[in-house]
């Protein structure tokens, strides 16, 4: 009876693992199968580097995603510019400076930020932050690169803070003690010993944050404004790849070029996040070995 239980338990977990892998492969396969046929009609270079996104234009639809790709990258880098100092700063504070009481409160609170649904962030950005940014800087619209970066940055902070804190707290105590014993000040110990020792974990957290920001859809749909242009300043609207798919998929004619082009964008996003995740794995694996 016991043996039967053991075996059936093994079988159940095996099936669960297999099912999730099969489902994932199925999703990847169908995204590629729907997207690849686009390139029979549109050249890959024309798709990637074309500057005009007019997928529904009557006579001559154009499927150039360059502006959208740049929009995605700018929003993501803007988010990291905000999230890296904030996230790393809070990680250093929690791990190195705060007392144990404060640490026990601060860490769960920061991690709680990650539990807020992205549509709530989006709503906040659209209804509160965008009008605020518009009046503060006296610009024509608040749905712009700056607002998008701030909101996306806030969403990425908990990822960077929590993972970097994990990395910092696994740095052996002896390293800190040796550094202090040699006469280094606490700040020198943190900046020259602890942070370099935790470097790979910190880089991993930033890469993961990058993946989170570039894949985020709801917030950019609500806050970025959606202009298919390359923003000339941080006060211009932009249109990232993800929001393009979300906004347009519902109304496309299934199977036509526009539909295929949205799947082709999905392939590109998949490749970007896949490569980032692979880098993250490599960086973190390296830390494990060292």
């Amino acid at each position, binding site marked *: 009876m016991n043996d039967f239980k053991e075996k059936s338990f093994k079988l159940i977990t095996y099936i669960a693992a297999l099912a999730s892998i099969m489902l994932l492969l199925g999703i990847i396969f169908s995204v590629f199968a729907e997207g690849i046929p686009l390139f029979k009609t549109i050249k890959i270079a024309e798709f990637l580097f074309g500057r005009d996104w007019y997928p*529904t234009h009557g006579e001559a639809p154009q499927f150039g995603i360059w502006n959208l790709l740049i929009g995605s990258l700018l929003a993501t880098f803007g988010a990291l510019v905000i999230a890296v100092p904030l996230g790393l700063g809070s990680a250093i504070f929690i791990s190195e400076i705060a007392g144990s009481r404060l640490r026990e409160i601060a860490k769960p609170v920061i991690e709680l930020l990650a539990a807020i649904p992205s549509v709530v962030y989006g709503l906040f950005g*659209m209804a509160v932050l965008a009008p605020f940014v518009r009046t503060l800087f006296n610009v*024509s619209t608040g749905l712009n690169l700056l607002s998008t970066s701030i909101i996306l940055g806030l969403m990425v902070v908990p990822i960077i803070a929590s993972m970097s804190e994990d990395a910092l707290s696994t740095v052996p105590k002896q390293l800190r003690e040796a550094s202090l014993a040699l006469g280094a000040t606490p700040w020198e110990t943190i900046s020259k010993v602890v942070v370099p020792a935790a470097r790979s974990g910190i880089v991993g957290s930033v890469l993961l944050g990058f993946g989170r920001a570039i894949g985020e859809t709801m917030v950019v749909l609500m806050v970025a404004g959606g*202009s*298919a242009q390359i923003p000339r300043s941080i006060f211009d609207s932009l249109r990232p790849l993800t929001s393009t798919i979300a906004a347009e998929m519902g109304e496309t*004619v299934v199977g036509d070029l526009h539909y295929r082009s949205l799947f082709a964008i999905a392939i590109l996003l998949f490749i970007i996040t896949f490569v980032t995740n692979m880098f993250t794995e490599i960086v973190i694996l390296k830390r494990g070995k060292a």
Partner: protein
Amino acid sequence: MRKYIIILLTLVLSFAALSLAAKGKQITCSGSTTVLPIAQAAAEAYMDTHPDLNISVRGGGSGVGVAALQNGTVQIANSSRPIKSKEISACKAKGVDPRAYVIANDAIAIVVHKGNAVQNLSIKQIKDIYTGKITNWKQVGGPSLPIVVVSRDVASGTFEVFNEKALGGAKVAASAQLLASNNAVVTAVSTTPGAIGYAGLGYITDGVKVVKVENVTPSETTAKNGTYKLARKLYMYTNGKAKGDVGNFIGWLQSPAGQEIVKQQGFISL
């Protein structure tokens, strides 16, 4: 062991009960988010008088609705635009024969910020604003303020109608903001002093100002008699002529009782 048997029995019985309950007649419709509020309210009202009938309504977009009709997963596809020839041929290839039923009228209103003094725009001016030729309100008799052009997504039914009727198929300037819903457009315009946008009449709130188009205010009368240029029809599509429950439902929606609901939702009756 007895505990398990009891649990198992309860499960089996509840499944049996569920499947019995689901045996009532079922109509499924999906499609345009513009038609969604009408379809939802109509379904609720109709089910009140026909308790044996279950009507489920989903959104997704006009294209999604037509695709679902084509695949046979819904009986009614809601659409805020006439079906496209490509979609008709795709339907025919699957043996589906889409039939159109006009269920309501709608007008697309041009809206600006409350503080904007502009009262009227011509179709030509609207076109020049959306294609980027006019960039400041002073060029159309307003204050000296850069225009923030707000549009719907290029794939939405509302955009298609606007693009055809106001822009004559011209491309919207790349700097235009493209927002995902009628509500998002109204919200953006209400909080942006230099903004111009457009939305279905049912979505207009007190937060924005509706401007006249070619000196005509969008309303029930002007949309019906054709003097307001940016008016459109809303459709339900069925496979072949609507029969049975589906036919009764659509027939009821087109009747005066159904059109009351159309009006309540802020749209214009037939």
